[in-house]
């Protein structure tokens, strides 16, 4: 894979993880209240906007990435997002890594490395 492909792939992983975490932070805010007030609260804080911006940028980075690699390989390489988001969830929100989750993350990581190595 060329440097540009690597850079775009890294960007999609970082933007996707950043976007998910920002949405989680926006949605998990305990001060947010309910109903319309909750949406107003979220809109007045940066997290929702940061999440949205990450997604728009990721959308573009993903299209650019896919236009440079075969689709099947691209989608397989994109699976690493699942692992990145789980690790980030563990790190920032203390979410549990159960044995099933660890096994799943290990297999996905291994699979992505194999697909990448064969590219």
């Amino acid at each position, binding site marked *: 894979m060329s440097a540009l492909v690597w850079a775009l792939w890294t960007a999609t992983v970082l933007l996707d993880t950043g976007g998910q975490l920002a949405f989680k932070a926006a949605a998990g805010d305990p001060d947010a209240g309910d109903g319309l007030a909750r949406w107003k609260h979220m809109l007045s804080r940066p997290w929702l906007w940061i999440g949205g911006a990450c997604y728009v940028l990721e959308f573009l980075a993903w299209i650019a990435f896919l236009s440079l690699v075969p689709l099947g390989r691209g989608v397989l390489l994109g699976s690493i997002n699942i692992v990145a988001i789980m690790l980030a969830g563990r790190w920032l929100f203390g979410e549990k890594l159960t044995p099933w989750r660890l096994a799943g993350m290990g297999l996905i990581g291994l699979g992505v490395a194999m697909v990448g190595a*064969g590219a």
Partner: protein
Amino acid sequence: MKRFYLIGFALLMGFDTLAQLSFKHAGSGAFPPEASLDWLLRLLAQPWLYGALLGYIGAFFTWMSLLKHAPIGPAFAASHLEVVSVLALSAWLFGERFSSLQVAGAVAIVAGIVCLAMGEPDDAESGSEQAAQLAAGREPRDAGEADGGAAH
């Protein structure tokens, strides 16, 4: 109820697959990618881009309806198993070929997704809980169950 799941999961996979195929077509149509307004305008002129958006919106609403009843484990797996359909269609539509190492990697990824699905609570109650969170406007999945986000 069984039919509801089958149709729901098939629809979800269909929308996700449509989105990925459309992304590929849109990207190829706007080739080469560059950090410029020109590229963005070329991209916006691609009809496939709107196919991708349709796939997203469809997948979102299907996911929401499924979560009302489906256990989160199978739903999680189904929301990521579009890699299988996308691989098959890439080979068929775009003539993509895979080395044996890559096929083994694909099998490992699918096995990993199945493991993650097995690790999620399997009772319908947790599905309803998720749906209740959705109804309350909360982010539907915790980070561990995230749907891979915008591009996936």
